[in-house]
């Protein structure tokens, strides 16, 4: 979802994802150049530390990122003119506010070398250290060196030694280069500063159980004592979430606010063909959605299908809407907004074209039913019948207290004749309330495998017996042929349900020693599954 938006928003020359990955793997230049480089084994030069691609002017960058001019100018000022030393920067702001793209674009504009490493791809300290050193030592992993790193370095002490060495080399190279350069021209050198950029810095907190990496990186500037090195930390959380008892001299904060509604509008409008039509669409759609979320990525995913709906009555999508048309479109469109407000985002298992035809068919088949209720009734994924039964039994085992299993399943369908006989007293009511509270707080209960199998067998036997509900017998479960087959089959199903995250497998219980499971599905989903099997789930559900 983010990728979609990024591609749209990004300046046409380079998609940002590519820049990121190439920057983190080999800090190379733009895509095609990268490809060429990988094929021919030219040694990397110091120019490869630059963000490649066509140089853009500052004005282009500002117009590429609507609503970000303050931040862009602030960073440019803090980076300063060529060859000016810099205190560490801390760039922070919510997700998809353009932190990384702006930094990379600015470095391309300024034409200065940087070493970019994301703490997401470099997911532990060793990989981070080695990635930085690889880039600085102009080392490229390829078949000839067995995809090995330039240096093996695990300890912070080694890292700082290697880093100091490598940085000194690079800086000397840069100085040499700029000296040569200054003889020829007065302008346009790459300077002798080198910048280290740490992206997704908030993740470091999680790998830092022994709390050494975080203080190390924050104190790196003081440890290195090299004025030619600039450090930039990019994080999605604010500096106050990094406080530790170690302490450090705080870097200079640069804050990226979330986009305002006005900015969001501009961004969304940017790559639209029919600007007028889209703007009239945004007039009606954006405001209600903005009350829910202001993240541009999420907004753009939920706006895309809405726009298609909006355009449905139109024959010519290039038309410029007038007032009358706007009103007509709005009245057609209004119900869709309301429904889109209540869904997050949906991934259907079928390719979208198929879904469309599917819906069409159903629409024709029973025109009275509303689309919404139809979607409610259907499962949008496929599961074997036995897996469905297993899921239901897991759900039951999670919800019902274990002590009630016997009374629920022995007398078949026992729950509904076990009615309350007298009016519940205050005390009972209170008890009930506190139990409800407990259910809300504790979540679904856990159960051992044996109980799951027992419940499974019970409900399957219930379902197998001929009842007034039709075609019950068609749910061929193939479990009549001996228990051994059943158990192995069920275990297989269980593990696939665990993999699908519908059932969670907990750690083994320290007292009993057996593994316990927990169903994570909501009651709605369980009811849906039961409905698809025509299984009377509510009969077996213990209501407190």
């Amino acid at each position, binding site marked *: 979802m983010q990728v979609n938006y990024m591609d749209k928003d990004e300046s046409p020359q380079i998609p940002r994802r590519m820049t990121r990955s190439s920057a983190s793997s080999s800090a190379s230049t733009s895509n095609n150049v990268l490809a060429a480089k990988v094929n021919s084994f030219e040694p990397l030069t110091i120019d490869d530390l630059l963000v490649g691609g066509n140089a853009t002017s500052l004005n282009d960058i500002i117009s590429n990122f609507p609503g970000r001019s303050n931040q862009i100018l602030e960073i440019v*000022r803090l980076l300063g003119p060529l060859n000016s030393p810099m205190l560490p920067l801390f760039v922070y702001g919510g997700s998809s506010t353009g932190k990384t793209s702006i930094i990379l674009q600015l470095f391309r504009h300024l034409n200065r070398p940087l070493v970019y490493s994301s703490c997401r791809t470099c997911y532990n300290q060793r990989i981070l250290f080695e990635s930085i050193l690889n880039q600085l030592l102009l080392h490229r992993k390829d078949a000839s060196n067995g995809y090995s790193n330039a240096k093996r370095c695990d300890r912070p*002490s080694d890292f700082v030694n290697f880093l100091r060495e490598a940085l000194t080399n690079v800086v000397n190279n840069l100085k040499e280069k700029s000296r040569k350069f200054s003889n020829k021209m007065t302008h346009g050198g790459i300077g002798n500063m080198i910048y280290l950029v740490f992206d997704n810095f908030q993740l470091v907190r999680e790998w830092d159980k022994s709390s050494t990496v975080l203080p190390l990186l924050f104190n790196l500037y003081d440890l290195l004592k090299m004025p030619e090195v600039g450090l930039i930390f990019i994080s999605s959380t604010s500096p106050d979430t990094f406080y530790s008892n170690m302490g450090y001299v705080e870097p200079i904060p640069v804050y990226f606010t979330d986009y305002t509604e006005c900015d969001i509008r501009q961004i969304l409008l940017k790559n639209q063909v029919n600007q007028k039509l889209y703007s009239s669409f945004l007039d009606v759609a954006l405001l209600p959605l903005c009350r829910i979320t202001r993240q541009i990525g999420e907004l753009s995913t939920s706006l895309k299908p809405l726009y298609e709906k909006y355009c449905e009555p139109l024959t010519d999508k290039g038309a410029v809407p007038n007032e009358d048309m706007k009103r007509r479109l709005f009245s057609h469109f209004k119900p869709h907004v309301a429904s889109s407000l209540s869904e997050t985002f949906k991934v259907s298992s079928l390719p979208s074209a198929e879904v469309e035809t599917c819906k069409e068919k159903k629409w024709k088949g029973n025109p009275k039913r509303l689309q919404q209720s139809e979607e409610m009734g259907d499962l949008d994924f496929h599961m074997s019948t036995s897996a469905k039964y297993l899921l239901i039994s897991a759900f039951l085992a999670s919800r019902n207290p274990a002590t009630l299993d016997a009374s629920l399943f022995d007398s078949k369908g026992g729950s509904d004749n076990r009615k309350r006989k007298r009016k519940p007293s205050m005390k009972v009511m209170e008890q009930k309330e506190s139990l409800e509270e407990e259910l809300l*707080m504790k979540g679904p209960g856990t159960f051992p495998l044996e109980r799951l199998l027992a419940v499974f067998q019970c409900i399957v036997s219930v379902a197998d017996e001929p009842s007034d509900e039709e075609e019950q017998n068609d749910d061929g479960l193939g479990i009549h042929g001996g228990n051994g087959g059943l158990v192995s089959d069920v275990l297989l199903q269980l593990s696939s349900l665990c993999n699908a995250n519908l059932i969670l497998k907990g750690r083994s219980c320290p007292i009993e020693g057996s593994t316990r499971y927990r169903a994570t599905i909501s009651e709605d989903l369980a009811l849906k599954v039961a409905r698809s099997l025509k299984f009377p789930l509510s009969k077996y559900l213990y209501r407190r």
Partner: protein
Amino acid sequence: MEGENHKTKAVNLLRSRICDPKFIFNDSHSPDTNYSKLKFMISTSVTEACNNSILLLGPRGSGKNAVLELVIQDLFQQYPDSISVIRLNGLLHCDDIAAFKEIARQLCMEHQLLFSKAASFDDNSQFMVAMLKECGLAHKTVIFVLDEFDLFAQGKQRLLYSLLDAMQSITSQAVVVGISCRLDSDQLLEKRVRSRFSHRKLLFKPPSMEDSQRLLMNVLTLPIDSSFPHDYVLQFNGKVQNIIQDGRFKETLSKYLNVDSTVKHLLRFLFCAVSHMDLQTGFLSQENFEIAFSSIQRQPKLECIKNCSILELYILVCMKRLEVKEQSSYNFNSVMKEYKSIHDSFQTSDYYARNVCLRAFEHLLYRELICFTDNRGHSLSVEFRPVKLLISSAELHQGLGAFHSCPAILQKLMDREG
């Protein structure tokens, strides 16, 4: 062209001054400064060939390291052949094995010996003792700089013990300088280590307001020499003088230094101000400092609340109401119950489906306005894990007030309970 050039040159000069601790701490040469005391202590132990150990204590960014570097630099000029410096950092070498290895490596580098990576802990520590003896015989003082000294005092303190123990012998000649921001660092030492430590401590205090202003003047004025046009320098310095004397500026400065008055903290402020300098005019102005002040003094949580959507605010207010009700612990489900009850009693227009709320809830987690109370329940799904607010109700109140389109009902709900 030429005009542009000297303006950028001025900015570069100021920035490199701010980033260079040696420049910042260089001005203090009167006899009672830490610089002179430290220099005296180390130089006597160099000249009189004795052992010594010193602790430099003070808050982060008060120039302990910079002053020590200056002293060492001076001593290198005075006694070029009789000093060698070994630098260790608690962040990097707090385990004994790494520390001894690093000492051996640096000693080898100093004396052009071959360093073996494979040498064991024992080899390295024996090598160090032997080297100390050799250095003592050659009348060479080894200065051990232990940055983040408190981290070396964790665990068994084997490094400190063997270092200080080796210094007990008559032949050796070494100075151990510990640098720490923990004022109680010497209390962390074990008895056997403490008894071998000569308790000299130098305390680094943050500068007074007058000193800070002198420092400002020193950093921000341009030198009157041939590198800049003469009248430009005069005009520049005049403006700086005016700004520093200005009452409004003094107020801002003292507000800023009230939080933290160490030198590094002041330098951050100056750095921001200098980088906001207008290159068109080429002079610092009062506004530069105002902007710098507002961009450094941030209130991250309030900013965060400002970024929330209306639904996220609803959830925050619900959680705050639950906290006021003194519910011991609550999770998403109980928040939803509260949300529903608000909707039931006030008929708000913002009532959304559960999954939408769950997503908003996850946004709040991601923004770190709320967090899970424990890390244990990884097997539970998000809805069931107990959560807590990371902002106080005052902050939430202030945030709602600053929010540009906050629904009136939310304000009302806040006021009623809070």
